[in-house]
Every structure is written in structure tokens, then in C-alpha cells.
């Protein structure tokens, strides 16, 4: 699978360079590196997988309505050497997550920082 990840990175890069592939496997293309946002929420699910790990978390908006966000991390293969496991984020964990929001307005972000409610920051890679 390590090969797979490397391969995904290759194709992601290729597609980024291909103007006809704007919607291709996204790498980080869907998340422009403009200003970041920070959200406080509750973990609903954590997918510790390749090619990207994904955190699903619930955030209350200004009106008290719950919005479900998806935050993307680098791959399981990249996170595992940094001590991550499938239980690094558990259901109902309170988290503060910072990252680049999706450019199409979807409730999705490329995560750059995760802080647990006890103040512990989970170590992330530099992204891919």
C-alpha cells in the first residue's frame, strides 16, 4: 500500500498539472492555501485510511445548527510513523481543528492542526 500511496501522489501531481483534470483525485487541489479557519467540534468518525485519512466532526454554527464537516489529513501510511492509530481520534472527542476550507464551499477542509480538549496537539505531517 505504500506503493499505492506513492502512486496516488504521482497521479495526484499529474492531475494537478493537467488543466482538464480539475476534479481529479484531489491531493490538496480542492483546498486553496489562502486563509485558514478554526472550528471547534465533536468527532463523529475517523477514517484512518489511504490515500487520505478523514475526520468527520460536528460543528454548531452561529444559530446552533449542527453542521457535519470532513477534515482531510495525509495518508495512513504517512501518519502511522508519527504515532497515529485508528483510535487517535475517537467518537465524541472534543477537538479544535484548523485548516484550509474547500474552495467550493463544501463543509470540508485540509487540516493543518488538531488540538484535543486536554490541550494536546496531534502531530501531523507536512501534508502531501
Amino acid at each position, binding site marked *: *500500500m505504500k*506503493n499505492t500511496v506513492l502512486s496516488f501522489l*504521482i*497521479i495526484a501531481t499529474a492531475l494537478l498539472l493537467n488543466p*482538464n483534470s480539475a*476534479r481529479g483525485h484531489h491531493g490538496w487541489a*480542492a483546498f486553496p492555501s489562502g486563509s485558514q479557519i478554526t472550528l471547534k467540534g465533536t468527532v463523529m468518525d475517523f477514517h484512518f485510511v*489511504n490515500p487520505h485519512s478523514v475526520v468527520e466532526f460536528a460543528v454548531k454554527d452561529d444559530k446552533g445548527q449542527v453542521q457535519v464537516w470532513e477534515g482531510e489529513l495525509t495518508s495512513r501510511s504517512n501518519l502511522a510513523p508519527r504515532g497515529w492509530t485508528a483510535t487517535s481520534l*475517537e467518537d465524541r472527542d472534543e477537538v479544535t481543528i484548523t485548516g484550509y476550507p474547500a474552495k467550493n464551499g463544501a463543509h*470540508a477542509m485540509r487540516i493543518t492542526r488538531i488540538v484535543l480538549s486536554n490541550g494536546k496537539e496531534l502531530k501531523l505531517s507536512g501534508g502531501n
Partner: protein
Amino acid sequence: MISKFRSTALLWSLFFLNFGFAQVSSTPGQGEPASEEGIPVTDALVKAKCGSCHTSDDRGNMQRISWERATPEGWEQALRRMTLLYDVDLTPAETGHLLQYLSTYHGLAPEEAKKVTYDVERRIHEETAIPNTVMSACGRCHNFARVLSWRRSVDDWKELSRAHAVRYNARPSEEAIAFLAKMAPLHTTEWAAWRTRTLDKNPAGRWLVTAYVLGRIRYFGEMQIESSGADGEFNTRATLQSVTDGSTVVRSGRGLMYGGYAWRGFSRSGNVTSSAPNDLSNDAQEVMTSAPDESNAEGRWFWGQYQELGFDIRMQRATSNATLLGIDRPLLKTGSRSQRIRLIGDHFPAQIAQADMDFGPGVTVRRIVSHNASEVIAEVDVALDAPLGKRQVAFRRSVMPGALAVYDRVDYIKVTPDSATASFGNQTRSRGYQQFEAIGYQNGPDGKRRTADDVELGPVDVTWSMRVFYESEGSRTDSVGTVGPTGLFIPAADSPENNFDVWVIADARTEKDSDGKPLVGKSYLVVTVPVYTFNGRRYVRDLDRWVDDGPARPVQQ
């Protein structure tokens, strides 16, 4: 027929060859005197066909060949290379003989072959703990299993590296050679033990078969194997019946046993029922590994552009004893009563008693509903305080470990595989499908999900849907593909010439979470184009990876 069969049985080696893999140096080396003892070649045909280039010493060692061992697939690649690149003239019968001899007497011990079984069985497998130097030396074109399909002397690993440097402009890596020489040496204790055994095994006879098809539960049946009369070749006939709906699949085929344990076969069904990619009547390659005592075998029968579809197979030799093969339901809930459960097996006696069956503590047999030689239907009660988790089921002395799970609730469902790849087709490559399955789990003693003590309960009844990343719920996904009621993802027929990240979502029909909402499981699916070009090179999709296919060729008009 033999040649056709053999070619088909080892089809994937052709596939890999086309991808530019190369395992064996094509030029027999004229190197230094060997520092390790070789394995003498005793076969007259090998000497006759290979001897003009691979010279022999006075001990019967032939250059290169005596310092290499490989799987049948490895040797088939080598023979094909010799045929294509060096005009070695081989008839199909001669090819078969050479393959049989080399795979047996210059093969891998079963323990060695087991480490790369996932590759020949075409299973998605995460290869880990491989040094970066080795990955960069080999990983662009090979998965690591392909490398470990060979055992070589130190000198031969060096020779392989040298040949790759010449042929593929691959930079030699001393560190990679040292790693491989240690990881995959010519002489091992496993091989030393195996080569002293009688390798001329005979799989002929009646075998009891358990077949598992992702998304379709379990099939039981039997396979009759008999000698075809040709050297080392066997005819097969398998009859499998679904425990779910009673439907039957009949397959006929041929196979060979390499090295006394490695079954390679091909089978087809005369009653093709549909053109569906996951139709169980599809022609299939068979890869199985037999136990040293020939009492059982397991492996995979598969098909598809990427060999991504098929059966997981377990077989055991039929005996005259009552044999339990399986049960028709993997789960029983605590506190439930009069639950019907079907035991499937062979040679169940004419007279049976409730005491003949054992479902473990807390599960009692209320009555026997019916029985015959191949099945027993019983009604059982499950105590409210029955121990949770997996347990064995037994009929007299025939025991099936972990066949049944007792549970009080499903805590979560997991979609397997948790991440996967499917691909659109093009003019030359068929679509690549992906079969999903939703498995129920209980948290286990620690009360946490996704930990080591979680109890796998088995398949859960779900409805399937999909959502493209960053699209809102309910958005159309037709241009990407569809996921059917059995969890099979079928890419769209027209390739959008693009890749998509997709959630494949399973919603449990009955199981709910603590808030009363249906349990949901998801898998991360990437749907890709089958081929792409980048920086002048062509990359081609394999089962779970991309392979550098060499310089991009001009598009044929």
C-alpha cells in the same frame, strides 16, 4: 489443451511481463567463482535447453539457475523472457516440464511462498517495513512481493542488480542488495527441510469446499480432482451451493500442483447465467496452497481485469468421518429462542442426537428439526447471559473454530475494504470493479471501537449508496458509477477521463446506534482512469498500485 491451460493458469505473469517487470537477468553471468554452494540441476531437459548459455560445472551446477529459486510465476516469467529475448525454442509440453521441475527443485518452501501468497492470489495487501533504498531501487516497477518471489545467492542478487542497471538504467544499490541477500537468501532452513520431503504429491480425490464471496455470503460444496492422464495434470469438477438462496455453481477445470503444495488451475462454468462482472460462472484462475500433509488447502479463484473478483476458498479432504463444514448464520443474539441454524457438512450419520452438537456455553439445542448426510437443521436457545464473542461449533469430533458469534448488540459497522480503487475502462482495458461488504462489530471488553479486542460479528444487512467528495448528499453520481444492492461498485461505462474520490456508504437496515439512528459505515474509494501519462512516461493501473510502464508511446490513430 495443456499449453492453453498452462498459459491461462499463469496468465498474470504475462500481464506483469507486459508491464515491464523483470526478475531474472537475461544474460547468464560469467561472474566470479560462486561463493555459495549451488543447487545442482538434474533434469535432462533443463540441461539441454538452457545449457548452451548456462554452462555447468563439475558438480552439476548451471550458471545462474543453480543459485536461484522462485515461485512458479517467477520461473514462468524467466522462461518467457528466455523465449522472447534469446530465442529459446520450447514447445508447450517442454515449457510445462521445465516449469514443473524448476518450481519443484528450485522453488520456494511453503513457508517462504506464504510471504508472497497475497501477490499470486491477487489480494490487496499493504507492504510495510521495506527500507526506502529498496523501495527506490525496486518499487517503481515491482511490488515487493515480486522481489521476494525469488531466493538468490549474494552473487546472484548482485548479478540481478547489474543486469537491471544495464537494461533499465536502474541505479545499483549496495544497501538494497545487502537487504535482499539477507531477506531472501538462497539457502534457508525452511528450504533445507522442504527439499528432503517427498514432493510428488497427489491431490486426486474428493475435497470438501467452503467458498466465500464478498457480498454474497458463503457457498459450500465439493471438488473432485482426478488425474488427466497428462504428466502432473489434473481435471477438476466443483459443485458449490449458496447457503443463502440454494443456487448452485458448477465449475470444471484443470490444474497442476507445483512443488508439492502450490496449486495453479483454471476453471469455467458451462452454465453462464449473466454477463455481470461478479457472475460466479466467470472463467477463473485458481491459486491455492496445500498443507504439507495434503489434508487441506486454501486460496483464491479469481477473474476480472485486475483479478479483483472471485471466491476465497478453503478445502479439506473428504473422509469417511462426519465432517462439519460450516453453518448458515454467523450470528446469534443473546436472549433469543428457537433460532434455526443449519449445519452443513459431509457424512452426517443416520442417527444423531442433540448432544452431537456443541455451540458453546449459553447456547442449547432445543430440538433437531431435520437432518440428512449433508445437513442438520437444529433449533437453539441463546441464554441472556451467554458469553459474548466468537466461539467454535462442533459436530462430534469435527470442530469449526470461530464459526459462530454470540452478541447482544452491533456497536458499529465497518465497510471492507476501508479504502479501495476502481477504474474506468478504455479501448484496451476493461473496467475495474470493487466489491464491498459491511461487517458488524462489537466493541469488546474495553468498550472502544476500532481496538484490538473488538469482536467481528459478520456481515450485516445494509443499503448501499455513494457520494462524491465535496458534493452534497443526493447529488447525482451516475457519471462516476453505481453501487448495487450487493455492494458491488461498477464504474460508469463512459470514462469521464478524470479521477474521483467517493464515499461508498452502508446504512444498516436494522442495527442502530445509541441515539437510535441507523449505523453507518463508509469506505474511501478512488475511481481512476486506467492509464495516464506524466513527464513523458506512461503509468498503468494494477490491482492496488500504479506501475511505471516506460516511455509514453504516441497515440495510435
